[in-house]
Structures are given as C-alpha cells and as structure tokens.
C-alpha cells in the first residue's frame, strides 16, 4: 500500500474511532485519559482510568488539595493513551498563583516519572497482609526526576498501560495562607492536549521546620561510591571522603545530594562513613585528626549544608565496635580495647562538645543483630565502657523476649542504654512506658507485618505512610532505618533511594514512592502534634488509634510468631481520611471561616467512615481437637474473638449446627477488652463421629450480645488410618493405595490471606491419605498443579524458613502429635517437610525463625518417595511408630495436620483450617488409628 494511503487510513481511524475512545471513563479529546490521585494511593500499570478520587473530580475538571505551610503534598497524575494517541506527552504544572502576588515557586513543584520494575520475590507475610497471591508482577516504585536525560519526561505512552507522573508540591515557609490556583497540563510541544484546574488551599498552620519525630537513616555509602565512582569497597567507617582533595569532589557532591534528598524528605540522615583517623599515643590516649571530618560534616550540623538551613537534629559520634576495631585490640571484652575505645570516645565527645554538637550526638556501638548471649554481652561491655560520653543506641529488646516464646533469646538487662531501637517484632508495648519513665527512649526499626508497617518493595502503599503513625500511636521517640541505601541485599532491605547514574544524573539520588510516603507519614505526625498543641490531645490519640489499632508485640497471640492480622489497613483511603479530619480540626482550631474547614455535620459522616473502615470484631474457630476420655470421645473447640473496636464486648458463644451425635456446652459467656483478643475452650461430647470425604465436619460458631451477631464456620478435621494387611510400596505412585472410606484429608484452607473472592480455598487442590500397619503409619499427599507447570523447587538440601512458614518453593509438611494434648507448644510436634525432589527434613519440635520452642533434627527412619506427573506431584511416606515416642504406640487418636506451600503463588494452606500459625497442638486436625 502506498504511503499516502496509509496516512489516510490513520486519519480516518482517528476520526471514526476517537469518539468510541471518548466513551471510556475520563476520556477527553485526543483519546487521552487523565486522572489524578493522591500520593497515598498505590498505582500500577494495570489501573483503570478514574473519574472521581479523593482529590479529583472529573466533572468539575478540578484537583483540590490542602496543605499547611512547609508541607509537601503529592499528586499522581495518571495517563492512559487510547487508540490513536501514542507517542510522547509532557505533564506540567503551571505557576500556582495565590492571594496578592503570592506564588508557589517553580522550584517547589517537582515532577517525577515512575519507572516500571518487576517484583517476583515475596516474603511470607505478603498473602496474609494484602490478601493477594504472591505472583510476579510489574510495579511502580522508583521515581525518576522529570528532567533526567534517561527515564524522565516526556512520557512515552504505551497503549493500554496506565502511566503516572508524581508531582510534589511543597509550600515553602513564609507562604501566605489562602487559595492558590494553577493547572495540571498535558502537552505535546506547545499544544495543551488536556488540562485540569489545580486548587491548593494553604492553611494558616505551619509545620515545624525540624521534625518532631526523628526518622534516622543510617547511610552507609560504600556500595553507592562503588557503583557510581568505582571506589574500592572498604568498611563504611574507613571509607574516607576528603573535602578539598582532588578525586573526592564528586564523592562530596554525591554525599551532599544524598543527605539533602533525605533531609528534604523529613528524615534525619546520618552519614556512616569517613570516621576520622586516629593514632594511639599512649595505652589510654588517642590523638584524632578532626580536620577532614569537620570539613565534611560541619555543614550538616550547622545547617549550612542543607538548602533550608535547618541543622541536623542528631549525629553519630564517629565510632563503633569496628572503629576503633575491637578485633584488632583484643575483642570487645578485653581491657586493651576498653582503654582505647574509652580514650577515643572521650576525645570524640570533647571535640563534639567544643563544636557545640554534643547535645545532638548519639553513640551506636553495635549494628543490629540477634539477641544472642554474645551480642548481649558485647553490648553490656561496650555500654559500660562508652556509656558516659553520649546517649547509647542499642538494637536490642528493652524487655525479655522469652515471654514472647523465643526460647533461646538472651535477656538484656543492660544499664546505660539511652535509646532502645529494636526491630518492631521485639517491642512489647507493656515495657514502653516503664522505660520512658526512667528517662530512656524507645525507638523501633521497621519490620514486617503484623508487627509494624513495612518498607519492603512488596509492601502496600499505605504501609510506608502508616509507619510514622505507628510511632505516634504508641508514643515512641523515633524510627531507625539501618539500610536506606542498597546494602547488597535488595530483597531484604529494599533501598529507599538509588543512584541517579543510570538515569543520566550521576551526582543525584533518585527517590522512591516509599520514601515519599514515609515523608507523608512524618508530616502527618506533625499535624497530630499541632492538634495536641491546639488542646485536642484526646482527638489526636483517637485518630491515631483508628489508623493503627495495634502493632509490635500487641499483634502476638500465644507467641511471637502466632499473630493477629495486621492492625492497620492496607487501604490508603483510611490514612487519607484520617488526615482530612486532622486538617478540618486544625482549621477550626486556628481560624474560623473557610480556611479548609467543613461544616461540623460532615465531620460526623467522615468520622463514621473512618471508624467503620478500621474497627471491627472478628471471631474464628481456631481448631477442634478430639480426645479419648475413658473410652468416650470428647471434643474441645478453640474459639477466638479479636476486638478491634474501642469498646468492651460481652456476649455469648454459641455452637450451632453440630454434626449428628455431638452435644455439650453449646452456649458460654464471652468477654473481651477494647483492642484485645481472647480465646475460649468450649467442651463438647461426641457420641457419634461422621465426616465427609475430605475428613471434615462443619458447624457454626456464633457470638451474640446486644445488637451483635457474628457467625463463622468452624470445622472439625478428622480422618482415620485403616489397618492394612500388607505394607505399601513407597515409590511415589499412589495407585496402589487402598480405596477405603474416611482416610482422606482434603478441603485445604489458606493459612494466610484470602482468595480474591474472599474465601479461603487455595488455587491448587491438595489431598492427603492415611493408612497404617503394625509398624508404620503411611501418609501420601497429592498436590495438583496448574497444567503444564513444573513443580517449583530448588535442587538443594535445605528448606528455607520465613518466620513460622517454610517458604520459597513447593513442599508439603506432615505434622504429627501422638501425645494428642490440646495444650502445649510446638515442641510436642513432629514435623516432616518434603520437597517435590523427595528431600525430607524431619524434626522433633517444630522449627521456626526465631525458634518458639526446642527443636532438633529427628532420626525418623522415614522412607519417602516423590513423583511428578503432568497433573500433580505426590509424595509418599512410611513413618515407623517406634521413632514417635511411647504415646505413638498407645494412643488411638493423634493430632495431625498436613500443610502445603504453593511456591509460585505463595499460597500456604492446611487441612485442619489453622489460620496464621500451624505449630500448636490446638490448631491440628485429628487422626483416628484403627488399631
């Protein structure tokens, strides 16, 4: 076809098809969809176009945002090019004009382009926290500055994909309150394709220039300097940046850019590098050369090194166990090291005092590590040596972790620690007030849900924002982030900034959406503190309590790894709504009139939305265990209430629709405190036992009281092991298994998370079978696959643990409890984990990380075989009774469970219906041995 004909056809298609494209939501002339969401919202390339969001109304073609002075408001401008409009477009913001001649300076409106990244590794908390399967996908996180030569603007539209431009609008100090107007425009060359009015209301309230909640970023620049400048990798402490030295200029510029970027994001960056050189002049005297160090850090400490002139509120004394190096001086316990470290610390403190920096100094002698005896002892020694020079930071739990079930955690009664900054999971709120009353500070390191919101790349958008809310809610003094930069473990500690080198910005850092949402949370804390100052501390606490119902060890049930669901919502609208209410309260507190206020009637509606969105009551049947009492069958149903409301609850448990032959205590009292949970054992008598082909009998557990009526399905998982006359051949082929009644375990349920439609059925079916002879228990597990998929496993001899879950590849686990108690810990359980390769890991006592009970490798004598077909993979085990303890030969009812991990999708399911945690006797199903 001739070229001109091709162009004619294109023009015709534009004319004919453009109106059709215009029928799509939000479409406008030019076949370009445009919408705007706030910075809280999680965006993805698959998003549909939107007409109405919290800040954008498509009918009025208007974006409305509010800000305090010195606050940064983020917008995400979404674009989708439909048929006929591909190619590149620019997104720009026109000058924001306000009252009088006031404008928001252009330098305070910054644009970024999202870069598409692939995420394929997910942690085990992901399904439970997000109710989403852990499958590889493309995400938006990295924000490339719009002016970057590579990866920045203009936006190259790809058909059908949603593109986003992130816009930061900062209201600088001194901005007059009032309404500022401009436009968000989409341009191609000089032509404006689309525009939306942008209305910014600046409230007569200013955020403090120095953050009230320190969010420390410990910046180890070694990898950054290696990546960008090719520097050799050394320890952070000895990586020296020498101002004024040729060859170091670019490094200095890079460090300036790094700290400035973090400072602008309301964090407290601490450069962990370039510790000053020293020499020993006597056994307990050192001479330190401060010149280069002072030249490097002085600007940050006096504020001249930051664009806003605000000095860093904290700075580390430049020493640690690696500097002076303890290993070269006899070890942390040696008197030689104590002398030199003490001398160094005194010299450093004196220098800092002289410079006027000492009141902002802190000393972090040891990096985060497990609570082992050695680590605790090292802390004790170092704090004893150094504790008088500056406040000491210890990344240990301020209270005992044994109370949370961590069997080998060393207790840390260490005197002299000023700042406790443990991982969130180690923090028991009960000790916070007691420690703070003694003048100590409690910080935390962001961890995983449900202990704290996460900064992991897989974390929902709301988590990064909610992190600061969590600190406020619990009255904590700060947040410590150990690795904001790439430290070689990007999957574990996803960096919050990356070098700009690959984007053509060799001296800049490129931020992420997670860093910007962390800033958003820090600004929210300032709003909460302003509300306190306005005489409404109760309201501020109430609001924070709605956003974060519980966290830290408040999320724990029986032990550190048996937990409640996360105590905050992954829906960003919750924190957005809470912020809107804060602004309304502040606007009425500080100025009557229309400066951001709304009528009080609308407050009630929005408050109700916030309460309903976060508060709730959840009941669950954790497990039903059978036992043999003098020849009669008894059952114990373990019921739990999780009360996420602020009210005490009282009601009645009811067990309904019991299977035939079941009777007993069908009603019993229930009571639970606000924001707490409680468990109850309900005893039932079993005169007749019947169950379906999946080994399940279902009934209903209900809680009623006042106007409350909640119901949930409960199950008793029970199957039997019929007696065989001939032993089975263990070869992975299940075709020789006898077809008998009632020896099947099916109907597996997800242990964490929910299926998209809200149910608990995993995507892939699993069935287990049992039988026995005089010497062995036989178990087989049939794991259906998706057609064509290979079983997903690694050819090694290990099974990775992620908390309480074996993780990372396909496997099944058989949990046996011959003693058949319903109380006790995982120490009473035998676990057999099998991969599709046939690798078996057998343990006596369930193993978790960290360990919640004693566990040891078990010489089980088990024979195992595995086989894979197109439809499924299967394992077959023969377990000798003689290696299962005395109870195995005596009891005819055992506790048992079978779990399966679908490694690709991260779906961890079990037969008994256990939720969240599987390694407790009360959470098992029941096996009847037909002896």
């Amino acid at each position, binding site marked *: 076809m001739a070229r001109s004909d091709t162009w004619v056809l294109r023009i015709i298609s534009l004319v004919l098809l453009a109106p059709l494209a215009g029928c799509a939501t939000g479409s406008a002339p030019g076949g370009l969809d445009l919408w705007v969401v706030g910075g809280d919202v999680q965006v993805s390339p698959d998003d549909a176009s939107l007409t109405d969001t919290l800040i954008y109304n498509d009918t009025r073609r208007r974006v409305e945002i509010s800000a305090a002075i010195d606050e940064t408001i983020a917008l995400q401008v979404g674009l989708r090019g439909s048929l006929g409009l591909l190619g590149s477009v620019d997104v720009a913001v026109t000058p924001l004009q306000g009252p009088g001649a006031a404008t928001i300076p252009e330098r305070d409106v910054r644009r970024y382009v999202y870069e598409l990244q692939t995420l394929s590794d997910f942690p085990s908390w992901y399904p439970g926290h997000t109710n989403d399967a852990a499958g590889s996908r493309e995400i938006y996180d990295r924000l490339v500055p719009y002016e970057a030569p590579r990866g920045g603007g203009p936006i190259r539209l790809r058909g059908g994909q949603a593109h986003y431009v992130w816009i930061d609008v900062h209201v600088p100090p001194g901005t007059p309150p009032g309404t500022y107007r401009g436009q968000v425009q989409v341009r191609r060359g000089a032509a404006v394709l689309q525009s939306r009015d942008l209305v910014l209301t600046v409230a007569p309230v200013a955020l403090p220039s120095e953050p009230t909640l320190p969010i420390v970023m410990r910046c180890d620049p070694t990898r950054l300097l290696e990546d960008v400048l090719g520097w050799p990798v050394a320890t952070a402490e000895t990586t020296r940046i020498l101002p004024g030295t040729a060859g170091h200029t670019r490094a200095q510029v890079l460090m300036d850019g790094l700290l400035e970027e973090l400072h602008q994001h309301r964090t407290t960056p601490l450069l962990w590098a370039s510790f000053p050189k020293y020499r020993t002049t006597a056994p307990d005297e050192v001479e330190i050369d401060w010149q280069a160090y002072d030249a490097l850090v002085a600007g940050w400490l006096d504020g001249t090194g930051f664009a806003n002139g605000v000095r860093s509120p904290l700075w580390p004394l430049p020493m640690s166990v690696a500097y002076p190096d303890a290993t070269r001086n006899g070890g942390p316990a040696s008197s030689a090291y104590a002398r030199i470290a003490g001398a160094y610390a005194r010299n450093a403190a004196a220098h800092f005092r002289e410079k006027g920096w000492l009141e902002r100094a802190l000393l972090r002698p040891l990096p985060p590590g497990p609570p082992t005896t050695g680590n605790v002892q090292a802390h004790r020694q170092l704090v004893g040596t150094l504790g008088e020079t500056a406040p000491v930071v210890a990344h240990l739990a301020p209270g005992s972790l044994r109370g949370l079930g961590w069997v080998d955690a060393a207790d840390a009664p260490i005197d002299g620690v000023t700042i406790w900054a443990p991982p969130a999971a180690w923090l028991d709120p009960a000790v916070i007030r007691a420690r703070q009353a003694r003048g100590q500070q409690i910080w935390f390191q962001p961890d995983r849900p449900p202990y704290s919101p996460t900064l992991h790349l897989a974390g929902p958008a709301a988590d990064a924002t909610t992190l600061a809310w969590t600190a406020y809610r619990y009255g904590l003094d700060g947040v410590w982030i150990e690795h904001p930069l790439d430290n070689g473990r990007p999957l574990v500690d996803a960096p919050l900034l990356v070098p700009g080198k690959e984007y053509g910005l060799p001296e800049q850092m490129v931020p992420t959406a997670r860093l910007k949402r962390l800033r958003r949370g820090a600004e929210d804390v300032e709003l909460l503190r302003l509300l306190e100052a306005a005489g*409404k501390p109760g309201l501020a*606490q109430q609001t924070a309590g709605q956003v974060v119902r519980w966290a830290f060890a408040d999320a724990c049930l029986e032990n550190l790894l048996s937990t409640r669901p996360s105590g905050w919502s992954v829906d960003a609208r919750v924190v957005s709504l809470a912020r809107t209410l804060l602004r309304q309260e502040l606007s009425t507190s500080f100025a009557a009139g229309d400066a951001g*206020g709304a009528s009080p009637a609308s407050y*009630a509606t929005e408050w*109700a939305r916030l309460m309903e969105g976060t508060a709730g009551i959840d009941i669950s049947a954790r497990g039903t265990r059978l036992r043999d009492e003098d020849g009669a069958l008894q059952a114990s149903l373990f019921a739990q209430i999780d009360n996420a409301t602020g009210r005490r609850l009282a009601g009645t448990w009811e067990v309904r629709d019991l299977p035939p032959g079941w009777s007993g205590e069908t009603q019993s009292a229930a009571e639970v405190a606000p924001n707490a949970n409680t468990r109850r054992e309900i005893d039932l008598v079993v005169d007749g036992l019947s169950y379906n082909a999946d080994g399940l009998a279902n009934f209903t557990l209900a809680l009623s009281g006042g106007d409350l009526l909640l119901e949930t399905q409960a199950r008793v998982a029970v199957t039997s092991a019929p007696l065989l006359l001939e032993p089975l051949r263990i070869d992975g082929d299940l075709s020789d298994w006898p077809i008998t009644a009632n020896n099947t375990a099916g109907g597996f349920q997800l242990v964490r998370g929910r299926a998209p439609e809200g149910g608990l059925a995993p995507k892939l079916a699993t069935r287990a079978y049992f039988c026995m002879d005089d010497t062995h228990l036989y178990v087989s597990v049939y794991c259906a696959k998706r057609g064509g998929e290979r079983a997903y496993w690694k050819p090694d001899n290990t099974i990775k643990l992620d908390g309480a879950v074996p993780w990372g590849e396909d496997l099944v686990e058989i949990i046996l409890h011959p003693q058949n108690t319903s109380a006790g810990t995982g120490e009473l359980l035998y676990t057999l984990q099998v991969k599709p390769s046939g690798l078996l890991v057998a343990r006596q006592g369930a193993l978790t990380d960290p360990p919640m009970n004693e566990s040891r490798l078990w010489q089980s004598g088990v024979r195992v075989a595995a086989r894979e077909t197109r439809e499924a993979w299967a394992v077959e085990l023969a377990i000798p009774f003689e290696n299962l303890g005395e109870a195995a030969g005596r009891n005819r009812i055992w506790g048992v469970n079978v779990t399966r991990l679908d490694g690709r999708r991260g779906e961890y399911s079990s037969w008994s219906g256990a939720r969240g945690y599987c390694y407790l006797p009360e959470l098992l199903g029941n096996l009847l041995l037909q002896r």
Partner: protein
Amino acid sequence: MATGNNAAAFRVGLVADESAAARLIAAVLGCDGLQLAAQAGMPRKNAAGEVPWIDDARVLLTREDIDALLIATAPGLTVELLAQAAAQRTPVWCLPPAGRTFAELTESIGLIRAARIVGRIASWWDLVAEHFDWALRRTDHFRVWAAELYISSPASQPASWQADRGRAGGGVLLHDCYDLLEAAIAILGVPESVHAATGWTRRGDASGAAAEDLALGILRFESGALLGLRATRGVPPYAAQLVQHGPDYSIRATAERLAIVDAQGAVRESRLLPSAWLGQELERFGQLVRGGETTGEATATQERHVAMAAVLEAMYLSARTGQPESPQSFYEVQKWPDPTPGFFE
C-alpha cells in the same frame, strides 16, 4: 462601698463578665469575711460603685491590695488567670467550667497544686449533697436505674463569649448542664461510655465557630444505669431538672427543690434547696483560705471537676466521631491519675 463586718475579712479581686457581675458582686458584698477590693471584666456601668474598676483583668491581679482572686468569666480567660494566680501564689476561686478542655483544666490544677495555693472551683453539688443524700436514703435499697437530665436555657447573646466556641469551649452542654450533670456524676460515678450529638438550631453555622445550642446524650454507667440528656438554648419553656428513677420512687431535682415522686407521679416529700449558694460558696472559700487548706476537701472538689471535664470532652468527641467514647481515655492521654473509688462520697 459596702464592706464585710468581720474584722478578719480578706480582700478579693473580682473578674466577672457582664452576665455574672451582678450576682457575684452581690454575693461578695453579702459575705462576711470578704472585702471587694477591685473588679474587672465587666462594663464599668455594671461594676460595684466605689470599688476600683480595672479595664484589664490581668492587671488586677498585680495589685498589692488583693489577697485572693475570684473569677467568673469565659473559660479561656479563666485558664489564663488561674495560671497567673498560681504564679503569684494568690488563692483563687472560679466558677466552673475552669477550662475549655480536659487538658486545660488539668494543667491549671497542676499549676495550683504545684504552687500550694488554695484553688477552689465552685461546686453546687457541695452545697446540695446532703439533701440528695437524704433523698437517696428514703429506702434501704434505692438504686438509680435510669436518669434524665433536661435543660432548656435562654439563647445566648450573639456577641457574647457564650456564643463563641473558641472562647467558651462549648455551649449548652458545657455551661448550662454543668451543675445538674455534676450532681448526676457525683451520684452515679464517671460513666463507662458516652454517646452524644450536638447541633445548632439558630445559625446553621458553617464555620464551626459557634457554640452549640442543642445537645443530646446517652451516658452508660458501670452499674448498668443509663442517663439521657437533652439540652437546648433558645427553645422555651425554660427549665432545668434532673430526674433519677429507682425501683420504688424517683428523685426530681431542680435548682430550687428536691422532690420524692412516687410511681403515680405524685410528690410524696420535698425539700427546698439552698438558694443563695454563691454566697455560701464564697464563705466556704474564705474558710479554706484562712485555714490554708490546699488538700483534702479542696483536692476532692478539683478531682470531681476533672471528672466532669472528662465526661464533657468525651461527649464532644462522641458528637464529632459519631461513636461512643470513654471519659477514661482522657485520663490516659493526659497521664492524670485515675479517679479513685469513693472520692465522690
């Protein structure tokens, strides 16, 4: 100038707004033991003749001829004057509410206690407690099952501080319900939860700056009792009463009278309540000052007002959030010691 006959009279400065000036002046002048030495806060024409009138309440406190300060004005100014009195270690008396919020009140009381001065917040309950006690003990087994508090007051003047939420801290709920609600709280204790709604019948205020003139509330107590509250301004007829219902009879209280009412609604017995309660209040203050009592009864009264502040702020919070709220939470947030059982007795 009328002065007290008691040779031991001490000199008081009075800060009162226009609405309170007349009755306060009359109460002071009728009080043996108190001598009105200076006054401020009211328009000059409402001031007592021949007593020095100061146009700035803050300046009044700096006068050397003042032994104690009496305050009857907007809570916002009351808080400021309480702090000033504590700083100067001047005994101080005020009408409730002595703060717009729980935080303001507890801070003021904290300053008073730290200064070890007599700081008394007037309490109608202290005057009438023995009469309520009589009513509650008519039978051995009387228990309040349910109570109703009904307040209907004249509308506040639009230009006055009572109509300005910023200066007043609240409207009909905070100010007009105070005395009878204090009596109810004194009898029933701090409620476990409160659920409230507030509104504006007159101005439909959009800015949120006006004090509310309509309030409804439900208070739940640990004993199982419920109290229903209805308060309005500017909706005649005007009345104020607290009715407490028990198994055999009800107790109906107004500002003037206490009545025992039977199941048919007939009044079986009644008592007049003290009418000149302000004068008696001030005399009691005088006794406390002379005796230097900074603890004991003085502290107990302060704690009851703290409890009132917690209840009222919980009601305002509930009206904002639409959810039941717990007064107890304010003690936790402000780290104020919990009310100990029995201090109402």
